[in-house]
């Protein structure tokens, strides 16, 4: 059972797949969140700066600027580094274990690992629980 969250926290959905964006935005709005979206890392950073978002749902494989670069830039930006990030990716090759990937994404710039990591296709309840926990 999906529980609605009170309050209007703003979430950035960053993914280059339009259907994924529609899905996540609808799901989040249905559960009481406000959403904005972007389709690549560069556009995502602009949204983070202009919209003052509370959390980012981040895809990794995107054209132009990947989620990895976006993540490193976000966590390297002292004003916004506290913004929690939920990585939602179809990247495979880590045997389902997200730890090596979390380390990879954070080592280059010595930034902290992402707050959460979910594999596509997501479990709706797990996704909403993760968002609720990170925004509580």
């Amino acid at each position, binding site marked *: 059972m999906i529980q609605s969250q009170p309050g209007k926290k703003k979430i950035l959905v960053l993914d280059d*797949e339009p*259907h*994924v964006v*529609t*899905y*996540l935005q*609808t*799901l989040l709005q*249905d559960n009481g969140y406000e959403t904005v979206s972007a389709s690549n890392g560069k556009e995502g950073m602009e949204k983070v700066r202009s919209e003052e978002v509370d959390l980012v749902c981040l895809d990794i*494989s995107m*054209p*132009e*600027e*990947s989620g990895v*670069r976006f993540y490193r830039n976000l966590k390297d930006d002292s004003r916004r580094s506290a913004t929690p990030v939920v990585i939602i990716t*179809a*990247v*495979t*090759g880590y045997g389902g274990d997200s730890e090596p990937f979390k380390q990879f994404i954070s080592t280059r710039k010595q930034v902290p690992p992402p707050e959460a990591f979910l*594999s*596509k*296709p*997501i479990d*709706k309840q797990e996704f909403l629980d993760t968002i609720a926990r990170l925004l509580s």
Partner: protein
Amino acid sequence: MQAVESEAMVTEDIRNWMHARLWYQVPMSISVIDRDYKIVEANPHFARSYGDWQDRSCHEVYKGLSQRCANCAAAKTFADGLVREREELGVIRGGKQTHYLVHMIPLIGEGGRISHIVEMSTDITGVKLLEQEKLDAERLAAVGQTVAGLAHGVKNLLMGIDGGMYMLQSGIERGDASRLVDGWEMLKEDMARMTSFVKEFLEFAKGRTPEVRSVDPNQPAREVLSLFRDTAKLKGIEIRANLPKSIPKAFMDKEGIHTCLANLVSNALDACEVSDKPHRNVVISTDEREGTLVFEVADDGVGIDYEIRKKIFANFFSTKATGKGTGLGLLTTRKIVQEHGGTVSFDSTEGAGSVFRLEFPRDRLPRPTEDEAPKDKKSPPSPAP
């Protein structure tokens, strides 16, 4: 009177001693054949490897053949006096198949006529085995990458389908007709994408059996040029080929090379099409560089930025609009090139253009499908003994 040993006699003795050591101890098989291809002399290593050689011909001993080999290298050396080097497949004692590298050195007899040929062969079976293992490992790695890429593509599509189902379900629950329509459209599109994705992947995985023949490398380049000339003209892009007048033939799958060049030219035209330069060019070229056959496709289009350069060979990665690129073009190219023992590389400058390069070391090219004997590697003739 005491005999005085001259310096020349000592030198002669040393030379004889060295020749004897070479003959008896060198770890390679040496035999001498006459003009009837009969072995008239052979060193102990030869006898140990190939067995009894007395009154037998070279083709009989090396290969177990009753007649002279097709495309016999010794016959050519008897005819032109050139030193030859060639890789051959033979049978050693016990019937085991062996790869050997043989050098043929003519011996000049009376009247300046070639009377005999020295055949010096080295067993390279171990090296060949390692080469094959390396190629197999490269192919396996390519398969692994492909499977990982397939999983990535499928997971993304499943997420879209999940989204469509959520829209439908929540649309029914809320009585929201527009959400129902959106969800239905998402499902329809994602199912179509899934179908086309699986079809393309199966095509890629199935591939085709390469038909390796002796090919003029300029031929597929010319064919691809002709294939894309009209398309380029329509887009206002100049396409041309820069081909040397003659380039040695190579054992290749012509259709495979055609596919590779067509993929690269198609990408190059796309890179030019989105560039706003007034004059845009695509050049296909072939070249021979130190035993390596090189194909290049260069364009002065938009170039490739750093982020895309990093994942350009990632499976199913495409920067083109949805429905236009499958992300399999460069992957297919790399697969075909690897099957030829070659490599794909590229240089690109954002805003200036790109050069994609296919490099095929000739000694790694596959063996011909049909019974075509390998070409000789010729050296200048040795001085008469």
